[in-house]
């Protein structure tokens, strides 16, 4: 299953709904391009909804880290929402779970943006 990304705005926060696999190739490129596009438009409060992301490989993890640092370097914030068990476990073993701000509730995540 290839990756799909769609964006919506809620109270000044851009929510990116991702579905499919974030893996080497198309999935990673779509994520990279989406975040790059948002930053170029000045949208720096980004919530990545990973609820429908079934799988992430090392390239996908790298892309999430890269998105996180790119947004932060431009003075913005990037948070993650609705991790599946597989993605949660992967972020735990790579010690990235505490690096990212991970949320379970969309409304709560939106109010958590500065």
């Amino acid at each position, binding site marked *: 299953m290839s990756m799909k990304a769609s964006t919506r705005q809620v109270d000044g926060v851009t929510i990116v709904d991702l579905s499919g696999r974030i893996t080497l190739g198309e999935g990673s490129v779509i994520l990279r391009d989406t975040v790059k596009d948002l930053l170029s438009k000045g949208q720096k409060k980004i919530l990545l909804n990973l609820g429908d992301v079934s799988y992430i*490989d090392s390239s996908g993890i790298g892309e999430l880290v890269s998105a996180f640092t790119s947004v932060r370097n431009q003075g913005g914030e990037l948070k993650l929402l609705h991790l599946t068990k597989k993605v949660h476990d992967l972020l735990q073993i790579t010690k990235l779970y505490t690096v990212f701000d991970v949320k379970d509730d969309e409304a709560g995540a939106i109010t958590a943006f500065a």
Partner: protein
Amino acid sequence: MESTLDSVNKAEEIANQMAAQAGLDEDTRTGVSMAVREAMINAILHGNAYDPGKRVNLTFEQNGRDLIVTISDEGKGFQPEEVPDPLAPENLLKQSGRGIFLMRAFMDEVRFRKLSSGTEITLIKRLQRSDLDRQEAST
């Protein structure tokens, strides 16, 4: 197999099927197929550098309680011990360098061997009694 992204995806699918045949449960199958995916990425991206003239060899075998996967490339070779620890605080926010760590996280043993031309990675998963029971029940 050809040095393409398609081969990475195909190898992952085959690994999932082989792991199922070996009797592994779903979580362990996901881990094994991810380890194989990462080893294939290593071989195709870092080893063969997508060179269409170079091939990747993938084999699966079950030897007693061990599910053994070998992946070899025709690249320049590398020193796995020189790959920085991706869990070290200074490396946590690096974009790459987690592939070998993930192989080791999901397999019981990971070995690297330098070939005359390329590198061979051997991934070993030890099957538990419950895996062997499932395997026997399905045959």
